[in-house]
């Protein structure tokens, strides 16, 4: 019953986010601040993780090719498919649920605990629009870092495969160009945009409606990470079936 009530509250929150917009002059600076914090602030960690995951995918694939009948370009092909279809859009979103999600929940939750949200509401400001809308808009640029993640992931695979002696550069490059289906990138971007909305709104929901003190802010951040990850995984299954199934 609590879950049903929470889903209802979440839907009401989303409706409120788009009501009574804040002045554009103020909203513009809030959006730029959130782009800096949520997008550029996440670029470093995602580049770092993507590079090494790409490398590990390439090494694991190469080590598991035992038959001579399997072409050597499979290492590049498998790395590309893994990175574009799943690692960049989905795995990165789970990482973002931890990094960006916990930041959003704790910052909004702290504002709730310290009555800053009450202060906004008393002034007549639509606190949900003021706090959540800029995050949604900023995270619509999330596909930008996913493109970077895709590129760096495949680059990591190439570095690991060629310098680790698992494949030649020519085989790897042939593999990453083999049977390339552009719709797979579209599929990844569609997923990314949906996950971006989830990344902005579920952590905001947990922060905005939290009750209690400083300890509860920490608990809300953990709960938010768990639920954001669960929703991302479920939506990943649904979207994959709808778009590729």
């Amino acid at each position: 019953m609590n879950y049903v009530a929470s889903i209802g509250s979440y839907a009401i929150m989303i409706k409120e986010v788009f009501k009574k917009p804040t002045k554009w002059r103020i909203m513009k600076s809030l959006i730029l601040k959130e782009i800096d914090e949520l997008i550029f602030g996440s670029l470093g960690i995602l580049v770092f993780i993507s590079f090494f995951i790409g490398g590990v995918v390439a090494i694991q694939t190469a080590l598991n090719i035992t038959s001579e009948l399997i072409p050597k370009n499979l290492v590049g092909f498998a790395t590309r498919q893994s990175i574009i279809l799943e690692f960049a859009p989905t795995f990165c979103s789970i990482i973002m649920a931890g990094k960006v999600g916990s930041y959003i929940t704790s910052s909004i939750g702290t504002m709730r605990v310290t009555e800053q949200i009450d202060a906004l509401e008393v002034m007549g400001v639509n606190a949900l629009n003021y706090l959540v809308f800029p995050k949604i808009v900023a995270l619509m640029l999330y596909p930008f870092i996913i493109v970077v993640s895709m590129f760096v992931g495949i680059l990591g695979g190439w570095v690991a495969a060629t310098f680790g002696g698992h494949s030649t550069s020519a085989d790897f490059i042939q593999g990453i160009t083999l049977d390339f289906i552009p719709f797979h990138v579209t599929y990844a971007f569609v997923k990314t945009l949906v996950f971006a909305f989830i990344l902005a709104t579920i952590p905001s929901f947990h922060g905005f409606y939290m009750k209690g003190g400083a300890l509860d802010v920490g608990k809300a951040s953990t709960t938010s990470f768990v639920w954001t990850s669960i929703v991302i995984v479920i939506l990943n299954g649904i979207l994959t079936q709808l778009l590729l199934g």
Partner: protein
Amino acid sequence: MIEVENIQKSFDGTRVLKGISTTFNTGQTNLIIGQSGSGKTVFLKCLLGLFTPDEGTICYDGKTYSDLTDDEKRNLRQEMGMVFQGSALFDSMTVEGNVRFPLEMFTKQSASEMQDRVDFVLNRVNLVDAHHKFPSEISGGMQKRVAIARAIVMNPKYLFCDEPNSGLDPKTAILIDNLIQEITEEYDITTVINTHDMNSVMEIGQKIIFLKNGVKEWEGSNKEIFKTDNEAVTNFVYSSDLFKKVRQMYIEERN
């Protein structure tokens, strides 16, 4: 003037406010006092429109809050200033940014007009060299003064304060009390203060409402509180030996 008529509010079947009626006059500091759990904060949040009463009406200069449209409620809220117990300053903004915030949100003033107004109110609360500091870099007393400056920057008709001097040393607490009273009289504001502080009661309690278990037990002024025989009020107000002695001296002097 704020007129409150038969306000009732329950949470999960527990009646927190049980039919409070009173009037808060303009140009006066109106104090709500009572023990913890007496319903003071809920009452204040009903006055602010943060809680909707289950029954009863609240009229702000003749405008009944529950009859207003959403836009009218928003406009009314812009005529309210609030000083929160913990100041509730925005951490990410400087002192100046906090005070300028309502002007940026709700007015079409130019940058220089806003700056003049911000300088004026910060000067009025005796904060002259903290403009570019963040809330975490200033003392609790200064934070309270910034909160007061933010609350009055829009020239409010109504000022609400929740425990404005909690956590402050006695000297700073008196300064804050006096500042609120001066501002109330100077700008003819209807001020409602939620407090536990007996110094505030004695110093600035032009009208005092004593709540007990969600019911208005007594109302009067700081002069009348000395004379009252209401046991609940005297037990609460004169709970310390010092205040008991002060009251005894007053009664002896009167006789």
